[in-house]
């Protein structure tokens, strides 16, 4: 039997608590960068002390209290400095005692409001998208710069720069660490949800590469989503996004074939879908529906639920899915949504009405380089018996995709169609 490695315990507790500790400090010192530094100081102390003194009984509380003391020391030094400047010597002791008590009181955050404020600040629209992603993972996820860099396949100094710039922007623009006023909440929340879903998609798209950091972005995004759902329980779209991520995650185990090749949703072995995540996803969706009208995430979750509820691809309720895509196209218009609607329509009503939709998209600039457009069109043409045209479309798709696995999938279709001609 071996006791667990204290460094790994420090790392684990840090990841669990970093968001809360940084959030509490940020409110006290009013600056995200400074709060993070103070929290890092506490982490360094833990790494120094725990291997010798043993892991404290309440390691999370230890980190929080140690970080608190750093903040108090800082405020003391500051107030001493300011007092010297003003040459006011009286009441110093009393003022310090007040400050200390206030700080300790103020650091309690039973409802997680600090975490929510920090999340809204890290996802502030004044920041670049890249900056928001990196800052959120760093402050709320407790991820190191190196881990973020590996997850996004960019050099570590690049991530360091993004975080540095984001913090500088927050301080230059004097962004207060606070919740936006009520009328601004929908737009600001949209930015938070966008950041979480971008993190999720970055991990979800990572079918290539064997670094565990990339897929773990999905777990991180899901964790952030679940935390947000706990903090903003009345927001329909928060639950909608959680539902969407839970349902998409449920298919992870079935998305790759034995040789690592992607398996299309309809060809996946549904026995490998994660029933627990499906159950959680459907429950979150039901909760979202009970709160109000579904937005773009809730609608996407409702579409994912059509797949999740079907025991086999044939059982899918394609009419419902086509209708949901139509609504989604109104809420969040996008040619990609329209293309997906075409696929649902082809399953519900046959290839001909679907081809009409797809042909309407051929002039779309946004889809010019999008391999799925020729791939879907090729599929519809094949079903209509227009083999030669179908083959051309799959050739086009193979030329457009940047994913090797996908290319070989398209080329196989080309070969099969050439044999039929």
């Amino acid at each position, binding site marked *: 039997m071996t006791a*667990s490695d204290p460094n*790994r*315990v420090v*790392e*684990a*507790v840090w*990841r*669990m608590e970093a968001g809360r500790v940084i959030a509490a400090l940020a409110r006290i010192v009013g600056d995200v960068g400074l709060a993070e530094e103070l929290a890092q100081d506490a982490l360094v102390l833990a790494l120094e002390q725990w291997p010798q003194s043993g892991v404290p*009984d*309440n*390691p*999370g509380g230890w980190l929080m209290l140690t970080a608190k003391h750093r903040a108090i020391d800082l405020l003391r030094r500051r107030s001493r400095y300011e007092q010297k400047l003003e040459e006011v010597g009286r009441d110093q002791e009393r003022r310090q005692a007040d400050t200390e008590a206030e700080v300790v009181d103020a650091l309690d955050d039973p409802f*997680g409001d600090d975490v929510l404020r920090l999340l809204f600040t890290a996802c502030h629209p004044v920041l670049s998208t890249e900056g928001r992603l990196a800052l959120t993972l760093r402050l709320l996820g407790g991820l190191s710069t190196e881990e973020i860099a590996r997850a996004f396949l960019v050099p570590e100094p690049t991530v360091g720069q993004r975080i540095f710039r984001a913090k500088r922007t927050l301080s230059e623009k004097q962004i207060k660490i606070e919740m936006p006023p009520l009328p601004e909440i929908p737009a600001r929340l949209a930015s938070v949800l966008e950041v979480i879903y971008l993190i999720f998609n970055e991990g979800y798209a990572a079918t290539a590469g064997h670094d*565990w950091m990339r*897929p*773990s972005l999905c*777990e991180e995004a*899901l*964790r*952030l*989503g*679940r*935390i947000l759902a*706990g*903090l903003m329980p009345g927001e329909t779209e928060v639950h909608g996004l959680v539902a969407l991520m839970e349902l998409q995650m449920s298919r*992870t*185990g079935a998305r*790759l074939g034995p040789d*690592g090749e992607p398996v299309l949703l309809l060809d996946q072995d549904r026995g*490998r879908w994660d029933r*627990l995540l499906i159950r*959680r996803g459907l429950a979150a969706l039901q909760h979202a529906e009970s709160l109000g009208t579904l937005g773009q995430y809730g609608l996407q979750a409702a579409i994912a639920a059509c797949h999740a509820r079907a025991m086999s691809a044939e059982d899918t309720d394609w009419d419902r899915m086509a209708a949901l895509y139509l609504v989604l196209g109104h809420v969040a218009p996008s040619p990609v949504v329209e293309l997906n609607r075409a696929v649902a329509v082809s399953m519900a009503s046959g290839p001909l009405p679907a081809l009409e939709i797809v042909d309407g998209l051929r002039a779309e600039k946004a889809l010019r380089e999008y391999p799925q457009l020729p791939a879907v069109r090729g599929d519809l043409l094949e079903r209509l018996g227009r083999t030669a045209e179908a083959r051309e479309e799959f050739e086009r798709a193979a030329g457009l995709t940047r994913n090797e696995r996908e290319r070989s999938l398209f080329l196989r279709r080309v070969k099969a169609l050439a044999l039929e001609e």
Partner: protein
Amino acid sequence: MRYLITLKVTNRPDTPPPGELMEAIAKLGEEATKAGALLDNGGLAPSDQGARVELVGGKLTVTDGPFAEAKELISYALYQVRSKEEAVEWGSRFLKIHRDLWPGFEAEADVHRVFGPEDFA
């Protein structure tokens, strides 16, 4: 990564579990759920309400409870965490509230990693 933590009682005090403990358990469960870590959990009824299906020498037998067990399995919790240490930390927090609120209670929590898609890649 997913971890299943099972809780086995090794010494049950004569006193019933105090109300404060039940409150603390609920609070910790809520905290773990809101942290996005706790996926599922449940308490297990005494073995007199269960049964055992056994396979020995190619023969199946079914026996109704109760079963005499030195360590009674009383609950399980399924966590989604980033490391074994995190799972251990949640398990420790769970046992610490028992230590603090139910004197004499002794138990062991086993932390098992659940295979996931990454194991079959």
